[in-house]
């Protein structure tokens, strides 16, 4: 019965987008946490739909039914007044029972969603205006690395993210995996989730954080544990040295034109800490916090005028000749 209700509800709520299962949707759960939340949500939705329908039906009957014949407003029937008083009282008690019941349902769901697993993979996410710093920290500094706007996790294993902020309040939200949690300066929050299947789950900042709040997205990429291990070993390595002359020129320009003041590329002299780490930028799928796909063309457009694509963001427009721009793009694309 409940499965049936649930299917109908899913159908009703998703028909406008039947063609496209969202990559960023609470209705498309891909892990136990988001599944549990959706389950709780459907219970609430079913109760709400019943209550609303009942109210509207009573309202409709109340409006349509044949009325008593008294025509002076104060000619009241004592019996009706008393009976309606009892009905109202009973409905009040029923309301109380329903909300207390729903509170318990909610609490049960909450306990499942926020269950903690000590063996979870831990990574730290630091919110910045308007991008995400992702730190994979290990006991040995040689196995710790930093990336940005792309969070890779192994499937089927619990992941714990520790959430901090470098500036204002942000909120970490990947609806397909779990609910959101704020990143608050001066406070450490954490969130646990598991991805059942491999895939790309889009997330986005959910707390208004300034002019480019709309362009503060990220991707959680779930991959099989083996693949994840290989990826992690690769990320641990320093950046590739440029293979050709143009790339070498790009590396020099990266330092000479000011990029390195803000961006770090491990294994080179570029050690800036203000902007996203670019050590393996060539292997990321998007740039500018999920704003554009990562291609040489979009990367060029971004570097040429970041203020055009994301007005108000903190990356300045640098004066670059077109051949210099080409060299820098060529260099960055090699940083796989």
């Amino acid at each position: 019965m409940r499965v049936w209700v649930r299917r109908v509800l899913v159908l009703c709520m998703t028909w406008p987008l039947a063609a496209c299962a969202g990559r960023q949707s609470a209705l498309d759960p891909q892990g136990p946490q988001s599944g549990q939340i959706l389950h709780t949500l459907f219970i609430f939705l079913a109760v709400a739909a019943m209550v609303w329908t009942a109210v509207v039906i009573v309202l409709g009957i109340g409006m349509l039914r044949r009325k008593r014949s008294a025509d002076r407003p104060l000619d009241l029937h004592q019996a009706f007044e008393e009976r309606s008083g009892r009905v109202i009282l009973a409905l009040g008690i029923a309301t109380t029972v329903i909300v207390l019941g729903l509170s318990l349902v909610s609490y049960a769901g909450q306990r499942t969603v926020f269950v903690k697993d000590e063996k979870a993979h831990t990574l730290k996410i630091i919110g910045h205006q308007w991008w995400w710093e992702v730190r994979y920290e290990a006991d040995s500094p040689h196995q710790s690395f930093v990336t940005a706007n792309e969070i890779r996790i192994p499937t089927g294993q619990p992941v714990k993210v520790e959430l901090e902020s470098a500036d204002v309040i942000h909120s970490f939200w990947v609806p397909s995996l779990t609910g959101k949690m704020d990143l608050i300066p001066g406070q450490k929050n954490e969130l646990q989730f598991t991805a059942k299947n491999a895939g790309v789950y889009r997330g986005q900042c959910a707390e208004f954080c300034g002019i480019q709040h709309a362009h503060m997205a990220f991707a959680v990429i779930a991959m099989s544990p083996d693949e994840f291990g290989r990826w992690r070993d690769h990320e641990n390595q320093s950046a590739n040295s440029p293979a050709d002359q143009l790339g070498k020129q790009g590396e020099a320009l990266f330092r000479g034109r000011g990029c390195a003041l803000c961006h770090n590329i491990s294994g080179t002299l570029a050690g800036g800490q203000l902007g996203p780490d670019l050590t393996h930028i060539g292997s990321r799928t998007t740039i500018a916090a999920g704003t554009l796909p990562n291609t040489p063309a979009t990367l060029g457009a971004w570097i040429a005028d970041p203020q055009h694509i994301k007005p108000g963001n903190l990356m300045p427009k640098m004066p670059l000749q077109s051949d210099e721009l080409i060299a820098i793009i060529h260099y960055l694309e090699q940083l796989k």
Partner: protein
Amino acid sequence: MSIAAEPNDLRDDVLNGLQLSTQLERVWRTPSGWMGALMAVDHKVVGRRYIVTAFVFLLLGGILAVLMRVQLAGPEKTFLSADKYNQVFTMHGSTMMFLFAVPVMEAFAVYLVPLMVGTRNIAFPRLNAFSYWMFLFGGCFLWISFLFNVGPDVGWFSYVPLSSLQFTPTKRADVWAQMITFTEVAALAVAVEIVVTVFKLRAPGMTLDRIPLFVWAMLVTAFLVMFAMPSIMVASTSLILDRLVNTRFYDSSSGGHPLLWQHLFWFFGHPEVYIIFIPGTGMVSAILATFARRPVIGYPVVILSLIATGFLSFGLWVHHMFVTGLPQLGAALFTASSMLIAVPSGLQIFCWLATLWDGRPVYRTPLLFVIGFIVIFVLGGLSGVMVASVPIDTQVHDTYFVVAHFHYVLIGGAVFPLIGAVYYWFPKIAGRMLSERLGRWNFWLAFIGFNVAFFPMHILGLIGMPRRVYTYTADMDWAHLNLLSSGGALIFALSFALLLVNVIYSLRKGELAGDNPWDASTLEWATSSPPPPQNFDRIPVVKHRDPLWADSESLPVVAGLSAERREVLLTSLAEAEPQIREASPEPSIWPLLAAIATTIFFIGSIFTPWAVLWGTPPMAVTLIGWFWPTGSKEDEE
């Protein structure tokens, strides 16, 4: 003049009929000319200004809403820049909450409560005038700043540290915080007046259980204002201090905490919702009784529900903070307390349904809006039960689901009753009926437009659309529902344009209303439309909860107040027994001057702390002028 030769002797019991009306009108009328207009202390004059000003802000806030809907109608539109959009959504929220919703409800109370309790003017009429000027100046300050591109852009909730000096170095956040101060002062003043008017100025015989439900609702609201506003006052003042003189209330690096702001803000912010909604319920009760042609069933239940709602509303602010990393059990308790408020709200709905069930409804425009209210508000209340649940809230918090939810609650719960109230009380205020034909169009456009605009937002939130984004990319699959929503918003906006047309047309051409066009039962309908300056020639005596239905022929009255100077009758708190005749203040220019001095002080103090020093003496001078003893006669038993 012969009258001046024998001061304070002429009582209203020695005059009759036209003579009495003319004499009282002379005593109570607002002086003519523009100076007279600036000196007005008549609650009806001030109330009318308050209502019109609040509706002007509704219009402005509504235009901003349409701008946002145009921007969001499709992906990656460039109709508004990111910076402009952030200002626009901040201005929309701030205008609607602080300059429209709360003031318009208080404005109706200022106009109606003295009439409904059967007295000649509101308590503290000069404070009332001061309150209006502060509201007007605060609203103008915000909007003029916006037009000069210094409009706040940090959200109507202005979370720190985004609104701190470090992240908002311009004056934008100060403008927001100081606008709050203006509206707080205005709202607190009205709250005090309402409480005193209801407690002390009721007509003889209007015992606590004969007070009209609308007045009860406004009384509870006034108490909510008095307890909730100090919290935001502390919050906004300490924000200004952080920004101006480098205090560290919200700076986590030196012992402050950003969450302190959220607690203070929502300790005000959640009751704020009920400050807007409870007057709406009062309007519903008033309209429903009149058009269902019978008193509201369960009068004590409705009142106890109002009071319970008032208390509970202070115990659930934390549900705005479920995703800030609070302890789980604590959060769960706030789930339960948040849901519990459904009980008193539900009880009121049941009472109204029963009233309609037993009544003989007359389907005029005000009643249509009440029915629309029930349908929309119940849905909003139920989605409120959903967002009260911690796990559900972690998904829908700060998404369009919440946008849908609170527009269902606030527009459904307050604006629909309010528009119904406009249709209901317009004849009393203007003396002419609004067009019924346009009213029906108005209702159906509003009802359909509202639902088309806001229902899709529930789904948008669930499929991942966060709030406060100025744009979204085409691959997010949000475009169709957003376009639908924008279309609905235009229809909804059209319904307000129609209301405006109706008001302008009916002011000139509307059918004359007469004293009591709806055959309603409460005292405001016992006087002419619009009411004379003195409200009632003789103070009515109340012997029934529905006085005009019980004594349809002639209302009993009490005589003995001065016809020579402004006097009101004070009665006891519970039993409303006559106690004392008290002087009611004459028109005065000082409230306006005091408001101007306060405005200079407030605006100056966002630029320099020294304004506190040089801004105070002018305020002191105006207050001394205001309270300068005039040698009026002592109050008499």
